[in-house]
């Protein structure tokens, strides 16, 4: 492919792999992201221009969101706009690439905004290969002006996908538990925000305990655990209507809910007489099927992306370990044989890995392993890291990191390679993140 010019080859080199040209790009990037990128790609993203005047959202703000998205992935180094020597005046003619090579940019993003007569915002952008001297992506978006952040995230996703070959994950949200107050009187509130921490919205007031929220596949419904009635039960929160309802009418505690990949079912734990077992409820007719019957603890179930299997944790073998069973409960088998205890398994949306919490030597860390239990890798090194959640592209995880002595919890993100560990900005302390799918 002649379009795979110098720039893409350079990227392939940067992303570590000396590969033959015949190898598909996807295969290169599969390895790239898992191995971690030590030398991020330098990308220049000048403020978007507004040739028709600046009444709409600021082109500077849009560019800032894109810069932050790409830099946060760890795969890109967003160059300082103060170093740019060639102001963008027109995005429809090729830039003077030499002026961007001088500042060591390998990729350039130019964009412009315009308010339409119908009140909509139009945003155009172009991604340029600075060394190959050609355009790689050119797209335009229309939306209501308040939605400008989503446009910025969609642009980030388009750039990320074109350069890495992987789907982006920037136009996504995170549902989480916002925490405040002293460690002895912790106030916990259900909250959602954009993946970059923008637009936080509190969904409950904090006058009752809420835990472990998870999105459905359309990111419109949240299943979570609430003590609102005084009895801990799984609830559903409808983001569109703001309504919440108890899921089922069980005599005892229900917890650890997760949706099936098609969104039609919720798998969760029901406790009876002190014994916790896994059940699945069909949301269409509310019928419930029990999947485990052991006298041990069975909890933290998570569907495989094809819906045919469920990974869960159990202490049936003597300590908390990870098991996989068929979606009907048949053929349960242990997959975690590494040191210590292993729990909170979550199946990657790609299907290739299971993320989990490893408890060993007095510390809790995040790990990943293949669904057959092989290839276990511990990827964080905190004192109390737990509860991983996958970005929709299966390449980045968020999790809860807590400090010793009840000094609060924060949300962090990390690549599955263990690189690019970052704190996710939240309003105050936060825990139990769950990443949405890509928003449709």
């Amino acid at each position, binding site marked *: 492919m002649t379009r795979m010019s110098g720039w893409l080859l350079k990227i392939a080199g940067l992303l570590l792999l000396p590969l033959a040209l015949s190898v598909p790009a996807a295969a290169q990037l599969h390895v790239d992201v898992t191995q971690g990128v030590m030398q991020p790609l330098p990308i220049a993203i000048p403020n978007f221009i507004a040739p028709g005047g600046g009444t709409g959202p600021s082109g500077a703000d849009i560019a800032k969101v894109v810069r932050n998205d790409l830099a946060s992935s760890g795969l890109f180094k967003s160059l300082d706009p103060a170093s740019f020597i060639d102001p963008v005046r027109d995005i429809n003619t090729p830039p003077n690439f030499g002026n961007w090579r001088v500042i060591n940019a390998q990729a350039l993003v130019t964009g412009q905004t315009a308010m339409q007569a119908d009140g909509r915002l139009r945003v155009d952008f172009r991604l340029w290969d600075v060394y190959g001297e050609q355009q790689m992506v050119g797209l335009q978006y229309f939306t209501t002006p308040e939605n400008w952040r989503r446009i910025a995230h969609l642009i980030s996703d388009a750039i990320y996908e074109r350069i890495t070959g992987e789907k982006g994950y920037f136009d996504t949200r995170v549902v989480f538990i916002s925490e405040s107050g002293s460690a*002895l009187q912790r106030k*916990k509130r259900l909250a959602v925000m954009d993946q970059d921490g923008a637009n936080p919205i509190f969904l409950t007031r904090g006058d009752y305990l809420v835990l472990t929220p998870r999105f459905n596949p359309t990111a419109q419904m949240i299943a979570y655990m609430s003590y609102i009635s005084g009895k801990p039960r799984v609830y559903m929160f409808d983001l569109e209507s703001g309504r919440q309802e108890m899921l089922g009418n069980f005599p005892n505690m229900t917890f650890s809910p997760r949706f099936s990949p098609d969104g039609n079912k919720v798998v969760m734990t029901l406790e009876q007489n002190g*014994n916790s077992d896994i059940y699945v409820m069909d949301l269409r007719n509310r019928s419930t099927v029990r999947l485990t019957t052991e006298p041990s*603890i069975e909890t*933290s179930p998570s569907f495989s992306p094809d819906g045919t299997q469920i990974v869960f944790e159990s202490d049936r073998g003597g300590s908390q370990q990870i098991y996989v069973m068929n979606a009907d409960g048949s053929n349960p088998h242990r997959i975690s044989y590494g040191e210590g205890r292993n729990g909170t398994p979550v199946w990657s949306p790609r299907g290739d890995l299971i993320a989990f*919490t490893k*408890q060993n030597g007095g510390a*809790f860390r995040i790990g990943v392993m293949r669904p057959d239990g092989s290839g276990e890798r511990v990827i964080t090194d905190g004192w109390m890291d737990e509860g991983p959640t996958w970005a929709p592209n299966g390449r980045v995880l968020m999790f809860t990191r807590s400090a010793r*002595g009840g000094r609060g919890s924060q949300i962090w993100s990390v690549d599955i390679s263990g690189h690019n560990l970052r704190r996710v900005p939240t309003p105050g302390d936060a825990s139990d993140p769950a990443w949405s799918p890509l928003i449709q």
Partner: protein
Amino acid sequence: MMKVSSKLGFVAVACSLLMVGACSTTKKEAADTTPPSVTQNNNSMTSSIVPGSAEDLRVNVGDTVHFDYDQYAVRGEDQGTLQRQAAWLQKYPQVRVTIEGHADERGTREYNLALGARRANAVKEYLVSLGVPSGRVDTISYGKERPVCTESDESCWAENRRGVTTITSGATS
């Protein structure tokens, strides 16, 4: 380890059941002898505590038992507390209680919810084995969400691994 401990849990419960079955007089003795000591405490210590009140349960009977790490068997040293609770509940038959099960921070959130439920249920089963009607005893697990001590050391963890008997209704006010 857990298999052993769950067996231990069953053993403990089975023992107390046997005790009740084999010598119901023991249970009666406990029921008969404990209330006077409550009264004594009332007289000698704090006359302001109303018999049959939540404070009476907390101060004069004892509302909390503790557990070993990742275990839910009632410990030997806590059996006296639960025997006093059972006697007190029989003296105040209108009282309904909820047993809170709690865990220390050294467990994942959902596992600890399950563990707290095991502990609350172990306390309930012990009280029921001593003759408290099971319908008067509810359970609730808070996992690691409601610590009473926040340092990350063994003494705090030991305090947080607990079962607390709280009054749902029927207390004298």
